[in-house]
């Protein structure tokens, strides 16, 4: 089936459409995670942000994560990450997992989003209300590296 599925999009994410991918009459436990753009980070007010990716590798790694999840749990998994310019409140990433029971669905969904954040080559650049901009870097002090202008 859906190794034809693309995981990256430049369009607004339709979480309901993503859920339709995993629907099956025998999978009654459906867990959805949506990560939205927040209005604050590192003590600054965020105005907007942009996501970029090493796209072929990001697609490949998302596919690997999905296959790994579906082999670890009796579940069906879908995920999408948005690229480009996003506004506060936009859905940046969504993961939907359907399983026969909720325990599996919750566990698999948590694992997928954690793996996505750990392994998928995507980067985030934030624009702040104080006029500064920064790359998000979980390894840096305060989690950002400010862009020098």
């Amino acid at each position: 089936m859906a190794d034809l599925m693309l995981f990256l999009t430049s369009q607004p994410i339709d979480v309901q459409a993503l859920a339709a991918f995993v629907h099956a009459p025998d999978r009654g436990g459906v867990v959805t995670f949506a990560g939205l753009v927040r209005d604050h980070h590192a003590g600054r007010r965020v105005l907007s942000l942009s996501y970029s990716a090493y796209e072929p590798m990001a697609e490949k790694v998302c596919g690997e994560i999905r296959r790994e999840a579906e082999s670890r749990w009796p579940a069906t998994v879908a995920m999408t990450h948005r690229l480009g310019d996003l506004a506060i409140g936009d859905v940046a990433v969504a993961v939907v997992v359907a399983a026969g029971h909720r325990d599996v669905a919750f566990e698999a969904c948590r694992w997928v989003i954690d793996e996505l954040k750990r392994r998928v080559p995507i980067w985030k650049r934030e624009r702040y209300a104080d006029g500064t901009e920064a790359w998000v870097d979980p390894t840096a002090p305060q989690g950002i590296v400010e862009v020098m202008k």
Partner: protein
Amino acid sequence: MTRHVVRLFARYAELFGNDQVDVMLPSSATVADVIAALRELPGGGSLPASPFVVVNMVKEQPAAPVKAGDEIALLPPLAGG
């Protein structure tokens, strides 16, 4: 000597002023050689102690070989999701 293209992303593309750079390496080169060559370029001094290098979209350790035609990329710390 072989010319290798290294793809750059996000903060590193800004650091090096381009989304790719060329490095010249001997034919039996490793990822460590790629990193050393990048450190010599303008902006390269800011790279971390253990940069994240992928070869053909797979993360590789410094001892891994690189050969002509490999797709090499230098990735900043990931920040998706």
